[in-house]
């Protein structure tokens, strides 16, 4: 764990406060708005410089929507996304106009999930990886080629490959190409959305090692979005868990695994099939299904599936509170019950 109060770190790199993103549900000929899908509804977290924050949750929990809001690939409905720029100025990404965002685009980059869909099949590696440089007006053709060669070497590919097309590469190699492209503009914050979930076990290990190595070398900060808890645990300093659009728990990795303070986190951990036939993971399987973010339950969103739920959970929505230094949870019973 890197300490946020260390003298070298003047506050977090990214400070997300009360982030919301609602999608309208429209109906009829006039497309009247009849309701909202509250895809992200109350997400607060910070990411310190040089650390990896893992953002986990199941499909539809809003983890991808939250990460896209940070990139301003979509516009958030509410909340603040405070980002400390390379110049040291703190800006609210949620409030910036597109033109004001442009100079910051180079600082925040993204690694995508699908290594097949995220590269343009008609462009060579030189053009694919060099595209962010071109868009951000960095260097001439010659300089871009040099930079692409350097990037390919950085991710463990041969620079000669730059004149080939993506189809000539395997899934793992393509994910390396995607990483090279994300690093082209020398970013500070990299949002990685499920970067290894489409890869085989042995290739996944290679890409995870590469990400750790690059982080060390380039002092990168990662927001690592994934659903695989063992992968997230391996790469993250701290872990944030989302459920139905809300952040339900946030804590340092070792602590959240040792003592989860939200029943959903605990259930999520129990649900992971352990690769050891002597350990049986059949106890405490979560019943029911994830509710729709268009019509979430009353009170605590998790109460219909929670075996610890009390009357209060049905009526009163818990607030995110700090139960121990750096350990946040959204549960009335945290501290009283062992989940």
């Amino acid at each position, binding site marked *: 764990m890197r300490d946020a109060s260390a003298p070298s770190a003047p506050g977090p790199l990214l400070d997300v406060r009360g982030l919301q993103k609602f999608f309208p549900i429209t109906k009829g000929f006039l497309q009247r708005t009849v309701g909202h899908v509250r895809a992200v509804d109350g997400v607060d977290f910070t990411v310190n410089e040089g650390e*990896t924050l893992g953002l986990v949750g*199941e*499909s539809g929990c809003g983890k991808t929507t939250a990460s896209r809001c940070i990139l301003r690939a979509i516009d958030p409905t509410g909340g603040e996304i405070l980002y400390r720029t390379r110049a040291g100025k703190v800006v609210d990404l949620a409030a910036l106009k597109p033109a004001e965002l442009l100079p910051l685009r180079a600082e925040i980059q993204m690694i995508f999930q699908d290594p097949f869909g995220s590269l343009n099949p008609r462009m060579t590696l030189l053009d694919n990886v060099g595209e962010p440089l071109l868009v951000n007006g960095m260097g001439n053709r010659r300089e871009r080629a040099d930079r692409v060669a350097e990037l390919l070497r950085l991710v463990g590919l041969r620079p000669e490959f730059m004149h080939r097309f993506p189809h000539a590469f*395997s*899934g*793992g*190699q393509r994910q390396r190409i995607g990483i090279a492209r994300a690093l082209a503009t020398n970013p500070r914050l990299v949002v990685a959305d499920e970067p290894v979930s489409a890869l*085989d*076990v*042995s*290739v*996944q*290990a*290679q890409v*995870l*090692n590469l990400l*750790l*190595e690059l982080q060390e070398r380039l002092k990168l900060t990662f927001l690592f979005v994934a*659903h*695989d*808890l*063992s*992968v997230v*645990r*391996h*790469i*993250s*300093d701290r872990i944030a868990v989302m459920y139905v659009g809300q952040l339900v728990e946030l804590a340092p*990795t*070792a602590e959240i*695994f040792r003592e989860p303070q939200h029943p959903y986190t605990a*259930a*999520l*951990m*129990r*649900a*992971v*099939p*352990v*690769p*050891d*036939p*002597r*350990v*049986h*993971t*059949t106890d405490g*399987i*979560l*019943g029911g*299904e*994830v509710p729709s973010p268009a019509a979430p339950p009353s009170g605590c969103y998790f109460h219909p599936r929670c075996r610890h739920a009390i009357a209060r959970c049905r009526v009163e929505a818990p607030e995110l509170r700090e139960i121990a230094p750096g350990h946040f949870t959204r549960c009335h019973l945290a501290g009283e019950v062992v989940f």
Partner: protein
Amino acid sequence: MNAEAPTPLLSVRDLKVSFALDEGLVRAVDGTSFDVMPGQVLGIVGESGCGKSVTMKAILQLVERPGRITSGAIRFRRRPPGQEDGGEVVDLAQLPPRGALMRDIRGGEIALIPQEPMAAFSPVHTVGDQVIEAILLHSHRWQAEKLSRREARDITVGLFRDVGISMPEQRVDAYSWQLSGGLRQRAMIAMALSCKPRLLIADEPTTAIDVTTQAQVLALLRDLQAKYNTAIIFITHDLGVIAQMASYVVVMYLGRVMEQGPVDDIFHAPKHPYTKALLRSIPSLYGETRVALPVISGSLPHPFNRPAGCPFHPRCPQVMERCSTAVPSLQPVNDRQLASCFLYSDAVEPA
């Protein structure tokens, strides 16, 4: 069942499936052998391109052209009408894929739970209708008189209840796109079980669904397996799922069986260097975090550039000279496990 000498329900011997493409011949399955005992849960594990799904398709005679079963046997013991055990043995590899016998076995005696229930269900028919159709097609096998649609529908509602679908009377009339991922996979399981198969092939049945739903579906499969004593071939790349579900494991790499044995031996005393490397490369929920994971060096060779000799030799940490020239055959390493590796046996696969 004959207690002292259990006979396998399915016996795959030296199966080879290849795809003749313009660019060359892809040997997707290259000499695979394993047995499935009645009521056993067999896990087949391997990474993309190891041939696990093609093996499954070969068993069901669903290999699409230009793919072809070139040699080997898939011996399946059919259930005699009205009886639980015994039965005549047919070699599925020899049956015409569209013949009456194969159509009877496929779905009726060997059922499939596919990976993508969204793609497997027709979106223009209700899920109930699709299960009813399967029951009406195959019911002659377990009862003499023809079932009416009404009766088949009642069976379907019962099956939906069995697999834990709430409000089954309403859900049979739902379309697949109206169901959540978990419910859809439950409906698929109901359909697979509808014809009382002796063998169920589950091809990555939980890969497309979330982890808490996966836990529910795995628990359901375990319960149903215990209840009906159906043999299951569980195909997955997830070693966690294999460890929790299978009693016997087959590890495949580039179309060949590298190792097989009881699940505890595979995870706690792996013999083949590939199994060892694969187990080391997964991040665990207990190990040290943020350190480099041990990786398998190199990458999976392109299907057109299959290495000569043992398919794993270019990436193997214990490679020896003859590994690049001769193919090791699958041989016992102790009284439980078998491995294809010259570290344990000198036996060479006949060319």
